């Protein structure tokens, strides 16, 4: 593989049984510990977690609050350096890349941040071109085309001149996604993107992600609370519980009733859908089943 930049400075790819074109994201026994100080007991531990994802795959990270979902996502994003093990994207350890190179490969869609000053959707999406520019970053025609395309891909072309704080939550989420697309990443990370969205907008977003993963050859990792959306759209599910990876695999093998009831401590029913994708429902007090 011929690459562009700081490749030579980095250790060579590990000897995985998969070829480089196959595995895009390799999380290998990655663990992390938060503690208040050097001699303090750990506040939170993410135990060694492993999974691999190829291009066009969607991975969902599930679990209760404080189960380590965001920690795992930040390890993948390279914000945190794993205590042991490693996280690689196309063979490079994410935590060792400089921010600029990393932003060209990994885009993160976070829970929305507060906007200090009004900004137009166009200018916001243009921020995604930041890692490719130099100096004052005057818009180049290439950037304009990429931003136009990113807005079109999420169906937000009509929003380009609107101020971000004036549009609805679902529309805003699309614009934030468009900015991530403008980064032209290989790996797209989303932290609870469906929060504050109604069910229609949620399905819309996930269908869009499915489509984008196919079309742009992205690998998508999404942290979510929506079990059914994960079951419907993910190729792989990582189920975390108190910082421990309970099970990793396709939705049908991970989303099983005993496991989910144990993790979420709620009476749940799981049925297999026609396409082999599980459906999770809350078992009501009448205990009826179809």
């Amino acid at each position, binding site marked *: 593989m011929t690459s562009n930049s700081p490749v030579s400075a980095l250790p060579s790819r590990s000897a995985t049984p998969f070829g480089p074109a196959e595995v895009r994201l390799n999380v290998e026994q990655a663990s992390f510990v938060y503690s208040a100080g050097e001699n303090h007991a750990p506040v939170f531990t993410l135990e060694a977690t492993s999974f691999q994802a190829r291009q066009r795959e969607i991975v969902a990270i599930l679990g209760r609050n404080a189960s380590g979902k965001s920690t795992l996502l930040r390890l993948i994003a390279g914000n945190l350096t794993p205590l042991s093990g490693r996280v690689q994207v196309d063979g490079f350890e994410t935590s060792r890349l400089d921010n600029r190179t990393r*932003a060209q490969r990994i885009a993160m869609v976070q829970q929305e941040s507060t906007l200090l000053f009004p900004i137009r959707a166009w200018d916001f999406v243009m921020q995604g071109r930041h890692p490719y520019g130099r100096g004052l970053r*005057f818009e180049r025609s290439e950037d304009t085309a990429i931003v136009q395309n990113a807005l079109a891909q999420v169906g937000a072309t009509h929003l380009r001149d609107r101020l971000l704080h004036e549009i609805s939550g679902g529309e805003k989420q699309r614009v934030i996604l468009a900015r991530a697309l403008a980064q032209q990443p290989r790996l797209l990370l989303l932290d609870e993107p469906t929060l504050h969205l109604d069910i229609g907008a949620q399905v819309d977003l996930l269908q869009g992600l499915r489509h984008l993963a196919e079309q742009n050859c992205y690998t998508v990792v999404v942290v979510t609370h929506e079990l059914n959306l994960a079951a419907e759209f993910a190729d792989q599910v990582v189920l975390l519980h108190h910082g421990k990876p309970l099970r990793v695999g396709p939705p049908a093998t991970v989303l099983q009733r005993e496991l989910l009831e144990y993790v979420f401590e709620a009476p749940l029913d799981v049925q297999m859908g026609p396409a082999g994708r599980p459906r999770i429902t809350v078992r009501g007090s009448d205990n009826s089943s179809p």
Partner: protein
Amino acid sequence: MRPLTLERLLWVCALLAGILFVVIVVALKLGAVPVSIYGLGRDLIRVALGQSSQLSSEHRLIVFDIRLPRILLGVFVGAALSVAGASFQSLLRNPLADPYVLGVSSGSALGAIVALIVAPHLNLEPSVSAMLTPLGAFLGGAATITVVYFLGRRDGQIDTATLLLAGVISASFLSAFIMFLITTLPSRDVRGMAFWLMGELSTPLPASLRWLVGIGFFAAAGAIYTTAADLNLMIAGEREAMHLGVEVTRVKLLVYACASILTGLAVSVSGAVGYVGLLVPHAMRLLFGNDYRVLIPTSAFGGAIAVVIADTLARTIVAPTELPLGAVTAMAGAPFFIYLLRRRAS
């Protein structure tokens, strides 16, 4: 929305430079001694043509030896404080940040006074000794912003209200020290209380400092400007900026250091002039938008214009007595600060 181009940027700067020129000419004319605009124009043209020997001696003294240096000092102080204010606003994610409100100006003033007191005891060459004042001001300012930054954090995040309180309290604490030093140490070289606490431009810049101040200003403001695109993203928060490829640590260190240099330089030559770094960037945001690639140069010009106007008012409204420049800027700035604070709260 048209995208920003170099051409548009230069046009905006040219417009503001034109306004600044007009303001300077008017400021040269106004004052305790009346100077006719015709005579002023004729003299300016003669200076421009290099025929300064033909100037009338009376005009030459008042206009070119007294008013012009003072006005140019105001141009520099206004530009430096405004660029520093705009920079702090991005890094601290706080539209109310300003070197004076954050206590950085008071820290610089204390640093400068300590340097003035210590300098005569060090047996240095006079030219080196003179540079200790801006150096002390820079160190005092940098130390203050570091302390205020950490005091203004809650749970690892900068908290707007806590930060402002930390700044105001630090300013008050440091001002008390300034008063203590000036009152107890009868050092002839230390200027008066009004200078350090409110700021004024009546003391001309010593010749030994002109180069240092000029080069320091352009180097620091230029270095900040190279990060203008990064500052646009830092407003969204450090984590988000990092995800978009900003080398957050490098940008923060560079911009904090350069904003402290700008504040230190301004304070060492004019004392602690307040609210310029708050008022001017806000006016520029309203006029030209929030893009730092435009905001930094426009703030520099706007700050220069604002301080020259404020100083002209300071030396004319109660002429022949003068007000401290900082009194004029505070009369305009403090109510504006309250207005912004109220608007944010609602």
